[in-house]
């Protein structure tokens, strides 16, 4: 059991109820393995996936599938609604080339951005080891040594372990720098540009959420390392303007950190969600037909919102379900917010036309006024607009 375990909340910590925590965690792991399919290796969660969990914390479907390590992209393909995520090889090459440039010559450029006067004197320990566990142990040791050494140290691609829903997740930040005073700073290298000192807010935000996961993992190691502390602002390194020269900005991730911490604590609910499922149900893509998989997926409640489309592989499936049941969520959270307690499209429309609904309900009253005003403004305007030939052919 790694040191990280010591601080994570468990499903149950009372001594007189049920089996001891260790046994319970094992039981959960076994249950999740059964859900995934016995012959399938769990799909490792990375920091990006963990950060994306925060995008829709209310979704039990995503929490369970991610917690069980189900390959959601393959599942979406099996369900007939494949995800559209992909990375262009141009972007991939560019990202790698930029990172290599930043870290060239023992990370001289990177350390200079941190204000290190003599980058050549910085230590760059070798972190190679066998397997993720070995690398994580090697990283923890290197961090301890660097903190005691009191010199600038650059850890290139360290491996950090974080306990998520009872099983370890291995994370690989771009770099961690140890200051002489024992402070650890996470470095995130991205290839989107910082134009005149500011980067695309959505991309910078995603980088901050990802870095917050690394900070969280580091904090578990720092808690048992004497004289160590983790910097709550991370160093975001990006190309400057239109060049390939690196520039950096300190990004405060305290807010992202607390969000991620809360999300991960809630992930322990995975056990709860799993125990609520009927027996004999699983997401084994090798043995189940697409209909069986679909009904298995549907038995876990989801919280679809259009924002899922850019963050979750299953989003197209969930969207299709939301649309076929006429849920107003499919039209966006803003629409949902306008409609009070009415949750289906047919229900809202019939309430608006006065065919159903409680006439004393303020939401219904507002809806009927809106419908009346809209009809009045349109004033019997021809409802059928243009018809054109099929587009995009």
């Amino acid at each position, binding site marked *: 059991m790694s040191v990280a375990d010591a601080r994570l909340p468990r499903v149950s910590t009372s001594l007189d109820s049920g089996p001891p925590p260790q046994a319970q965690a094992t039981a959960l792991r076994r249950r999740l393995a059964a859900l995934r399919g016995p012959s399938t290796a769990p799909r490792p969660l990375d920091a990006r996936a963990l950060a994306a969990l925060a995008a829709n914390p209310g979704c039990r479907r995503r929490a369970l599938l991610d917690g069980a390590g189900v390959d959601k992209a393959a599942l979406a393909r099996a369900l007939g609604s494949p995800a559209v995520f992909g990375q262009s090889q*141009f972007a991939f090459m560019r990202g790698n080339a930029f990172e290599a440039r930043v870290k060239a010559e023992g990370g001289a450029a990177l350390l200079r951005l941190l204000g290190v006067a003599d980058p050549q004197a910085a230590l760059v320990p070798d972190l190679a080891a066998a397997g993720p566990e070995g690398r994580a142990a090697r990283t923890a040791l290197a961090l301890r040594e660097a903190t005691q050494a009191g010199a600038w140290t650059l850890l290139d691609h360290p491996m950090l372990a974080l306990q998520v829903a009872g099983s370890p997740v291995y994370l690989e930040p771009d770099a961690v720098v140890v200051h002489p005073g024992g402070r650890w700073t996470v470095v995130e290298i991205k*290839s989107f540009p910082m134009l005149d000192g500011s980067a695309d807010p959505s991309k910078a935000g995603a980088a901050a959420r990802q870095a917050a996961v690394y900070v969280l993992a580091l904090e578990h190691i720092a808690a048992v390392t004497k004289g160590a502390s983790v910097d709550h602002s991370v160093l975001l390194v990006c190309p400057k303007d239109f060049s390939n020269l690196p520039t950096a900005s300190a990004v405060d991730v305290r807010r992202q950190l607390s969000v991620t911490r809360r999300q991960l604590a809630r992930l322990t609910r995975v056990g709860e969600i799993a125990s609520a499922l009927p027996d004999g149900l699983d997401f084994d893509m090798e043995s189940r037909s697409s209909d069986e998989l679909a009904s298995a997926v549907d038995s876990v409640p989801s919280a679809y919102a259009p924002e899922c489309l850019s963050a979750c592989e299953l989003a197209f499936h969930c969207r299709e379900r939301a649309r076929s049941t006429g849920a107003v969520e*499919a039209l966006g959270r*803003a629409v949902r917010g306008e409609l009070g307690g009415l949750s289906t499209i047919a229900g809202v429309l019939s309430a608006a036309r006065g065919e159903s609904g409680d006439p004393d309900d303020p939401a219904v009253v507002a809806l009927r006024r809106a419908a009346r005003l809209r009809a009045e403004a349109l004033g019997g305007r021809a409802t059928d607009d243009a018809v054109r030939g099929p587009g995009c052919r």
Partner: protein
Amino acid sequence: MSLIGALARLEAVESGRARPLATVRHRHLSPRPMVFVPLTTAGEAGAPLGALVGTGRDAPQLLAVAQPRDRDLRFAFLSELAEVLLPYLDGYADGVEPAERGETDPETGKRVKVEVELCADAPQLIVPSGPGIDFVRLLGRSMRFRRTAEQDPGTPYPAPPRVPLLGRWLTHYGERARVPGSSLLLAMTDLLGRHWATGQSRLEDRHLGALLAWIAPPEGGSGAEAALRAETERDREGQLVCPPAGPATDPAFDNGLLAPVMERYDRARQALAAAADGAAADEQLARLTSAEREIRSLLEGVLRPTWDAVWDGVDLLLELPEGPHVADRWKRDRWSFTGHRDRVRAGEPPQPRRDDAVTAARKLAARETAQAQLDAQEALDDPLVLAGRRLAGEAFVGVVADVTMAWSESKRPSPRPLLTLRTQDTPHLGSGVKAYRSLAGRPQSAEFVRYEEDGALVLRLLDRMGRSRDPAEGSVPDVGESVAWTLFEHDQRGGPKLPEPEDTPWTHGGPPRTDAESPDAVTPEDLL
């Protein structure tokens, strides 16, 4: 989103096609817009991949970069783009009409009217989607600080002659697009989304193909199905049938089609450089040309559907009659164009990287004023927009039930008639709250007096009734007339006056620097 807008989306789901959100067109559309459909290289900032550009649906000009990592090829692209865009922009610079502008006399400090030129029309750029506007801004930023060999003979990688000038124009257009209601640079998805509500979320409306599928589905089909096809349908090679509207390309296109051809292009170029004799060089040159032609045809293949979609959108929007206040807002756009034309002609340096404090404050104030003005004008132009304001209690429509003459208690009594109105709306009225109506295009104000016992409300008319004791003909509504009143003002007053940039206090950074900014640093391998 207002409840009326939400209702329109629900109706669209039910009927399977988009529902109107406006009864008139709220943006100016030029009879000869310049449509610009750009593509960018994934992962690179400011490395264009190609574009279709032109003022006629049937005559798009294809610009392509065979290898975006090559600075010379990128410059060639920008130079070609300047060849297309600058003559179009210049074409509007000389058609002028006389106009007056209020200026402060530097000697007396008084406001005086000055005779100036105002361009009679202005060039309009249309891009497919919001990211297209960002890309215009990015291109502008990447070009305007470049130096040409003529400007600075010692510059390491001189830009082609007209490229910095194009950068300044694109920067101006990108900045203008931030002003609410402006029409110099428009995104088709924003335009269509303003006028129609689809049966999908606003987020999904950012896909131009899906948005158009809802507004004008193929005959007999539903918008939902057509939109899903536009989003996800792929051909046998795994390529999207309806490619994204850019500037980002589909990764499957990059990896499956573009990258292999680009590699062939690179290999042929290397071999050409290393060719020992004429025959070998000819062979490699043929390979190079064929790879280049293939890249061009690949790019045209993914650009053309978006190009057609933008023009489809233009056609759909032209079917809507233009809102009465649109010309007024377009006039402000013409002022903006004329102002930048004058700055360029006066030889002013390119726009700075960051605005100084006074300029930034002015821009923000101008945008706030423009937003309030847009909200008011759209409501006055369009009963459907007004319906939303009525629902929110910010406007009401009432029938005049009674007119009682009354006069002010001054030495020369002016008419202050009392109107009794019946309305089903529920405006947020309290004592002293003012209401406005449009009288021959000018706002006439009234003051709320009281509610009658039967629920009718009483307003006192305050102005625009002439100077005599009796109100001028037609300035007071008749009994039985239905009048729309707003609780918001129709014209927006500007905020407090700001100091001149030279007088910026030290708390806000002091006076801005006046020297031209230095160009961006360049390295031998600029990208990657």
